[in-house]
């Protein structure tokens, strides 16, 4: 019934889903899952406060992606939601640069709703705050560089989908003295963010941002599920290596099923 070569993936998916439901149920019954602190996300509130004192704007950048790049953009949008709430509460000028036109209405709704929920709807200025800079990678980058220099941005929260422009953006915002929190899953851009940003979220730390910032027990239960499976995979790797050392390819055959 299941396609050849997909059985092991299917089993992993079903087990993941079952464990997810079990841990969500446990969280509903009151079990608390502790997440380690992510200094990058903890620093966002401090960054916004710093920008407010300096009277300079902050940039909440969800990256180049669209909803087609899926979880990465969703994580970026979760952070934009969080940052826009704090900015609205503190009266800090906020700029959200958008590359893909698909997410332009989503970002508009996010920021507008954040300001409404904080009772600061009169401070919401879509022309200033939501800036579509073109979905060409380089026009977007050039536009952002211009924003950094002209506005003298105090904090740059860039968590989302980034490609080759990561280095340019990180270095440009560093040049204007902005406090930077970066997060991306693009492994080959990680070194640039690590070098240029004050805090960096690497890989799945970034994908956990939504759950971490919401502090929702059910969402945190999904992170717990991930962690359980990481331990399982480490076990699989260890067993596979040991089997390989004695000349058995059983683990490989099981995973190839």
């Amino acid at each position, binding site marked *: 019934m299941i396609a050849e070569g997909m059985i092991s993936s299917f089993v992993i998916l079903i087990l993941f889903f079952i464990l997810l439901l079990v841990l969500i149920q446990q969280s509903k019954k009151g079990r608390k899952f502790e997440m380690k602190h992510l200094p990058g996300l903890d620093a966002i509130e401090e960054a916004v406060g710093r920008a407010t004192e300096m009277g300079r704007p902050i940039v909440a950048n969800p990256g180049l992606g669209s909803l087609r790049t899926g979880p990465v953009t969703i994580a970026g949008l979760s952070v934009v939601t969080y940052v826009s709430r704090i900015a609205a509460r503190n009266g800090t000028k906020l700029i959200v640069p958008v590359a893909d036109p698909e997410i332009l209405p989503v970002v508009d709704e996010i920021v507008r709703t954040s300001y409404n929920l904080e009772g600061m709807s009169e401070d919401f200025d879509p022309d200033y705050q939501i800036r579509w800079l073109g979905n060409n990678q380089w026009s977007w980058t050039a536009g952002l560089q211009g924003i950094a220099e002209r506005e003298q941005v105090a904090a740059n929260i860039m968590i989302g989908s980034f490609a080759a422009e990561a280095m340019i953006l990180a270095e440009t915002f560093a040049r204007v003295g902005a406090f930077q929190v970066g997060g991306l*899953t693009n492994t080959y851009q990680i070194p640039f963010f690590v070098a240029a940003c004050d805090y960096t979220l690497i*890989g799945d730390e970034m994908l956990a941002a939504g759950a971490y910032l919401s502090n929702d027990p059910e969402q945190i239960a999904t992170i717990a599920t991930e962690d359980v499976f990481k331990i399982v995979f480490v076990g699989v790797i260890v067993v596979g290596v040991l089997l390989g050392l004695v000349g058995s390819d059983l683990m490989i055959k099981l995973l190839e099923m």
Partner: protein
Amino acid sequence: MSVMIKKQIPLVIAFIVGVILVFEWFIPTNLGDAVGTGLRESGIIINSFAIMAGVIGLYLNEIRKVSLRRDDWQYSVWMLLVVSLFILIGVPFGYESTNYQWMYNSILMPLGATMYGSISFYIAAASYRVLKFRSVQSIVLLIPAMILILGNTPMITSVWSGFTDTGGWIMTNITQPVYTGIMIGVALGTLATGLRTLLGMETGWLGRREEGE
């Protein structure tokens, strides 16, 4: 339409489509294949319409900025002119036409290539600022970086290939396993985020927050 329905309908659609596509991937059947193909082709069509909707939204926003004389409205005029020019040439004559090709080759391509080329300048400035024997962590960053830079310098590798071999060892035995580990974490994170989205727990893509938060 109430907020409940505005939120619930997209979540229900996302759940149904997601479940169908997941099962269609794992359990091939003729019906599943046909439905999955139909959904994927619909996705392609919807994506094209989304681009069109984005361009329409862009026009509306930028025209409003110009009419209200907002800050930097002159740039909005320029953007509208350039976008209109590309559309007026591209749509009737096609992107293979000489005029469109000329515009692309003369304007977009050199600008894009220049922006990409400017990365090297930023890397040079960042390397100078960051790569120092400041702490144990920065030394761990600095030494392999130097070995890899030397190993990728043709002037040096044509004389001695030791840096290339060492750099290759670092890439194969340190970088690659580390990246594999990160990719496994990202894959699990993607799976968790995807399932959160299907279950309606992750609603950031809807652009809405819970009432009363």
